[in-house]
């Protein structure tokens, strides 16, 4: 690189300023959620907690959110696992067993990723009532799996398209069929995209609000709905609200911190050609 480095200090100043702005909300979230009620004052909002860290906010927040955190967890785990299996099979067929019209079918499936769910919400509610899956977690799992088909198929299809067809040809010569090739050759190579899809679907379903608020009742509220109601009520102190926000965000934040590169790949896949 022959680029002059004289501008580097300016770049650093700009980047650090931007980083401070991006971290400001998280700083506020952290300090507030550890403050005692007495310390929660508009004037000292930005000051660090001055008389120790108060974890009882989290105890209080957990008391409010515990059932919904459990609901979210019970929903998200089967959802992410089943979604990834389905996406993997779809991606395999669409990448390696192209049949007449398969590109069209792929595009028709992909469109489902972009629709505003308000445009299918009423039929969805009626349908879920009809199959007796309205108002509970199993229904929400099914809905997230189905509306996850486009993105999971996309991620797996792009991944499998990058795996050379020669390996498969070799497998065919050894007598493996469509299922054998998948089971013994592609599946063992699929761990990275399973990670991407599971993490993506986990994050999406955990953070989702519209289906959650429409398709569940109070006993099966996921955490986004419970948090929104908690924040909307004037009865819950501000420090507890912040502790609750932190609790609700923690699982996906931890996933991001420890498995960020898989998360990023899912993100990029959503941009189709990015």
């Amino acid at each position: 690189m022959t680029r002059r480095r004289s501008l580097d200090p300016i770049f650093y100043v700009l980047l650090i300023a931007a980083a401070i702005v991006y971290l400001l909300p998280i700083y506020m979230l952290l300090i507030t959620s550890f403050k005692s009620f007495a310390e929660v004052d508009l004037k000292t909002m930005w000051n660090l907690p001055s008389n120790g860290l108060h974890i009882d906010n989290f105890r209080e927040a957990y008391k409010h959110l515990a059932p919904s955190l459990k609901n979210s967890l019970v929903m998200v785990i089967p959802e992410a696992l089943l979604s990834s299996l389905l996406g993997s099979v779809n991606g395999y067929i669409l990448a390696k067993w192209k049949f007449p019209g398969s590109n069209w079918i792929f595009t028709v499936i992909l469109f489902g990723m972009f629709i505003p769910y308000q445009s299918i919400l009423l039929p969805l509610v009626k349908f879920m009532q009809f199959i007796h899956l309205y108002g509970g977690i199993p229904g929400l799992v099914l809905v997230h799996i189905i509306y996850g088909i486009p993105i999971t198929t996309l991620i797996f299809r792009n991944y499998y398209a990058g795996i050379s067809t020669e390996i498969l040809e070799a497998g065919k010569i050894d007598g493996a069929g469509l299922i054998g090739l998948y089971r013994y050759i592609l599946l063992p190579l699929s761990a990275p995209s399973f990670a991407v899809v599971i993490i993506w679907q986990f994050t999406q379903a955990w953070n989702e609000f519209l289906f959650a608020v429409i398709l569940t009742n109070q006993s099966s509220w996921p955490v986004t709905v419970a948090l929104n109601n908690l924040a909307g009520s004037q009865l819950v102190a501000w420090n507890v609200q912040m502790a609750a926000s932190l609790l609700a965000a923690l699982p996906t934040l931890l996933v991001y911190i420890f498995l960020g590169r898989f998360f990023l790949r899912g993100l990029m896949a959503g941009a189709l050609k990015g």
Partner: protein
Amino acid sequence: MTMLRKFEQLTTRLPLVILAMLLGSAAMYLASTGQAVLAGHDLTSAGLIGGALLLYGGVIMLVSSLGSELALSVALILPSIVAVLIFVYAFIAWSVRVSLSNWKGLLPDYTWNGLNNYIELFSDRRFQIDIRNTFVFTSLFLIASLVIGLTLAILLDQRLRGESIFRGIFLFPMAVSFIVTGVIWGWLMNPATGSRITGINLIFKSLGLDFLISLWHSSPPPWGMAFTVIPAVWQLSGFTMALYLGGLRSISDDLREAARVDGASEFQIYRYIIMPMLSPVTLSAVIILGHMSLKIFDLIVALGHQDLRLDVPGIYMWRTSFDANNFGQGAAIGILMLLSVAILVVPYLIYSMKSEAEV
């Protein structure tokens, strides 16, 4: 020889296939006719889903012993296709039908109402506010995300030390839900003034930047809506940054080197060589961010707390359908939202498919 083996396989499996398909159909039939209550438990959904799985298992066994790999590949992807056809396309058609009906109230009413729901919407004051708000939000959000994302990407493209830390900081808001973002920013953008001043306004005040103190999203329309863009940009500009950074990194260093040899300044290299090469990235970003902002919903729910000045079509649809039972109007709003997204996305999807087919 293989034909014979296939035939034997088929005949030994056939009873199993028939059993599975029969059981599956029976389970689905019983469940859907409402005779599926056992010991007080509602088994309808379990019967339907279990039955469908059994039926499908039978189909797969049958197809796989026929030996046609084309048929098997179609059979394997069929459930997903059927699910998408029902849950996306049939439901859209159903919504269109409801939007043309007079359905107001809990009981379905498909009385033909023509385009009246749509016509009423466009003369509805609330929906006019929604359209204006969506327009304000989408345009400002796109401009801000693209400019900030590109700026951050160019800064990070300088191969400075600590690049991955900065990248991580700009991207982490993506992992948080819109609800959490809305709750946090609702406190940061507190509009209180005077002795109750707090949040970002308090920072401005203590820095002596009093002129920046603002009412934020409580400002009079349409400015209030403009401020709701700030949390959205905080959450999603990292995504634009990552897209642009990927684009920048795919431009070879040789190209830049050649331009430097020809005497181009760094600014000229970006302006005349790199920027034009990034236009496909900009297109992707506009499609992804644009469709997200046209259907923005949860962020405004958490931030606005039913403030009608911050209303958007997604919220109006929710309220009018599920609080007021005005399903005809709700469906019409949903379909209009879909049209706005489709205008943006469909050409792009078809273009993507065509350009891929050529490769």
